[in-house]
């Protein structure tokens, strides 16, 4: 453990000052220190790794007591000449003995460091083993923010078994991070399903590893109340609900394709004939069904086999929800989650029983699971699908996946720009976090409550992160890390619209077409 022999090669950055504790120290630095820098403290028993969580620069001459510009100007001049004028303070969280961290064990020293302890810059060699371990499960996501020569890797096994939350303001790189995960998971032939609510991922170019699925709903597979949601019958319209419930029976559900709609219409008609008091409601239900058939022609498909059959193993499956209303999308996502969980339970049971992994088991008559290997599901706009103060179908099944997914190899990734809007119970079960820039205090508090791995100091720094920069914490990393995520160039849209440029192009095209039309008009014709 004692690696004092390599001290001379280290560059002293500063000295510990003030009162210390075993987990936190303050140091006076010889230069400004950046948040997210790693430092080494020398202890009797060996070197200890620390993370700079806060950084301050003070000036004796340019203090808060400056009253006016003139005074500030003069103070600036004298401060420039006074090499003792500036104070560079860093607040360090102690992460553990370096040698133990290299073995993925975080052991905090029992005693605080003495004031006067030297602080050194951590070298790439120190950090490489911790943040860039070897192994199939470790995939590269970017580099450490302040030590760009060190790769930042994350443990994909831990995402699948302990889930992940990606939280940030809009435009800070959430979709880029999901794309990056997709790209890297595709490289190792993993199965991933992204519920794409804003059509952010359809242009992700990862070759044959991608499977684009347009979300469709087979109404025959729905419960009556969910079907009512899909065709936009209001919950408060009790008579219409009654008619639909009565009409949407097993007989109707067994009809496929166009026959389904005809059978449904007939069933509604017969209720109207049978129960006169519901005649008006029945007429409205028929209108709703006609509307839905016309409006949601691309989405509602009674001829569809199991929608889960469209999802492929070993691919990144993008389920495009862009044409669905929020309620329809909710029903779709909840359906997939329910079916996926059942499928993975089946796969796990069969694996335990030593059964075959794929294909139907003709000897037992039990169908084989569609997904014999773990699956990672990404829910974008999580605050809409798993909201805090509302019960939705997706919320129910997402909660089940969050609780049970670990055992059955169904990982959940929730992505949101409004953490305060996500159900806190589900959020707290996300074992890993990628947090980018978050300014709203409510959001910060929710993130803080969701994870013990993020200290208050780290949370305080979230507003200062730039696009693409993130704090990774939890089980998918060995230690909390400030990371700069790689930019996924294989993704074509997702950024802000360039309205001015597009308008300019449009005007140019109009002008060209006008000129070319004029060239066909003979002179003097007009």
């Amino acid at each position, binding site marked *: 453990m004692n690696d004092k022999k390599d001290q001379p090669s280290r560059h002293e950055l500063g000295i510990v000052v003030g009162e210390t504790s075993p987990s936190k120290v303050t140091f006076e630095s010889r230069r400004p220190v950046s948040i997210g820098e790693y430092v080494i403290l020398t202890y009797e028993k060996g070197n200890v790794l620390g993370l700079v969580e806060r950084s301050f620069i003070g000036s004796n001459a340019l203090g808060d007591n400056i009253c006016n510009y*003139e*005074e500030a100007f*003069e103070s600036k001049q004298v401060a420039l000449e006074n090499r003792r004028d500036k104070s560079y303070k860093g607040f360090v969280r102690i992460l553990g003995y370096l040698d133990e961290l290299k073995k993925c064990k975080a052991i905090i020293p029992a005693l605080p460091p003495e004031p006067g302890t030297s602080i050194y810059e951590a070298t790439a060699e120190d950090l490489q083993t911790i943040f860039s371990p070897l192994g199939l499960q470790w995939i590269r996501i970017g580099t450490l923010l302040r030590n760009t020569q060190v790769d930042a890797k994350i443990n994909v096994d831990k995402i699948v078994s302990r889930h992940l939350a990606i939280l940030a303001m809009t435009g800070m790189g959430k979709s880029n991070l999901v794309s990056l995960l997709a790209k890297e998971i595709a490289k190792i032939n993993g199965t991933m399903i992204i519920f794409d609510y804003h059509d952010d991922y359809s242009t992700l170019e990862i070759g044959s590893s991608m499977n684009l699925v347009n979300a469709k709903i087979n109404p025959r597979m729905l419960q009556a109340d969910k079907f009512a949601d899909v065709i936009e019958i209001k919950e408060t319209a009790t008579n219409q609900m009654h008619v639909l419930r009565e009409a949407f029976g097993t007989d109707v559900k067994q009809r496929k394709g166009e026959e389904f709609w005809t059978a449904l219409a007939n069933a509604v008609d017969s209720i109207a004939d049978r129960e006169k008091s519901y005649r008006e409601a029945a007429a409205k239900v028929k209108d709703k069904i006609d509307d839905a058939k016309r409006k949601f022609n691309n989405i509602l498909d009674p001829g569809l086999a199991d929608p889960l059959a469209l999802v492929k193993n070993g691919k990144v499956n993008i389920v495009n929800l862009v044409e669905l209303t929020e309620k329809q999308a909710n029903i779709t996502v909840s359906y997939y989650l329910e079916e996926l969980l059942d499928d993975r339970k089946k796969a796990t049971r069969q694996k335990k029983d030593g059964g075959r992994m794929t294909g139907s088991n003709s000897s037992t008559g039990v169908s084989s699971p569609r997904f014999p290997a773990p699956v990672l599901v990404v829910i974008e706009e999580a605050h809409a699908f798993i909201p805090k103060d509302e019960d939705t179908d997706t919320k129910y099944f997402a909660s089940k996946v969050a609780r049970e997914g670990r055992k059955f190899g169904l990982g959940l990734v929730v992505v949101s720009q409004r953490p305060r809007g996500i159900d806190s119970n589900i959020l707290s079960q996300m074992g890993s976090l990628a947090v980018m820039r978050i300014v709203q205090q409510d959001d910060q508090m929710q993130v803080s409550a969701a994870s013990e791995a993020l200290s208050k100091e780290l949370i305080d720094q979230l507003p200062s992160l730039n696009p693409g920069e993130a704090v990774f914490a939890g089980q998918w990393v060995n230690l909390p890390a400030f990371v700069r995520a790689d930019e996924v160039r294989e993704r074509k849209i997702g950024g802000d619209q360039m309205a001015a440029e597009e308008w300019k192009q449009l005007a140019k095209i109009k002008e060209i077409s006008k000129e070319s039309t004029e060239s066909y008009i003979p002179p003097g014709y007009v």
Partner: protein
Amino acid sequence: MLKEIYFGAIREHKDKIAQIKDSDFGKILSEASSRWICYEPSPTGCTTAGVDSSWNKRAFQGLDLYVVDAAAVTAKNEVLASEWETNFGLARSELLEQKAMLMEMTVLEKASRRVDIVCVDGSLVPRIAKSSAAVASETLKVATRCSNAIFVSKTSDSRIQFANLNSKAGDIYYFNHATKSPGFSRPVKNLQSGNFGSIVVVEFYARIKEHTPIIKVQTIISDASEQEIKKLLDMLCYRSVAGYPYCLRLAHDTCKISNEDIDRLASIYGLQNEPGAREVLNE
């Protein structure tokens, strides 16, 4: 008690202010204006050092722990000279003050050779007129030897300029109210005599930058002509903040002995368990 004091102030504030701003006030202001020479210093590069001292003590029952120190510090925060003393005993405040003054003279002499101007914090006159003979003679000796030494005060109760006009406040008060522009008052020669002999102290008030507080400058340079004063102000202006030489601020910061410092020292000497004088007051 405090409430009565505040009510008293509210009731009597007009009368109290009127004692200062009485019928002679306007006369004195116009006299102060007439003695003011407007001059906007243009900064001239030079090296300056500030000299300051500090003392503090912690009183235990029948025993004082005291510290006295002094330092000469440049505007670049380089400590050119320093002196200190710490001890136990019965330390009267006047005694500590005199020790501090003597230390200031020691560091002044050391620093004087290395810079263009040395600014000593505080008035020269009280050092020679109100201190012990030893302090007065040492001050005169050093001040005479160090021709580049000036004594700079942020405030003053000196009333030699307007006493004949029935002034109630110190001269600096009237100059501050009569003028806003940079410049200086016509130098006044102040003869001081005593056991040490006699000496002429030249004093003037100056404002280095507009709308900043006035400072009082004293020196024993006999030929303190207006031209010399202008040159001096040009040099003082070079590294000053809000009209005050920055080297003096740094000297103050360097030698300041706070209550925390003296408590720490008491702890080093193992006096933390010694009964103090103010414990009965819960302080």
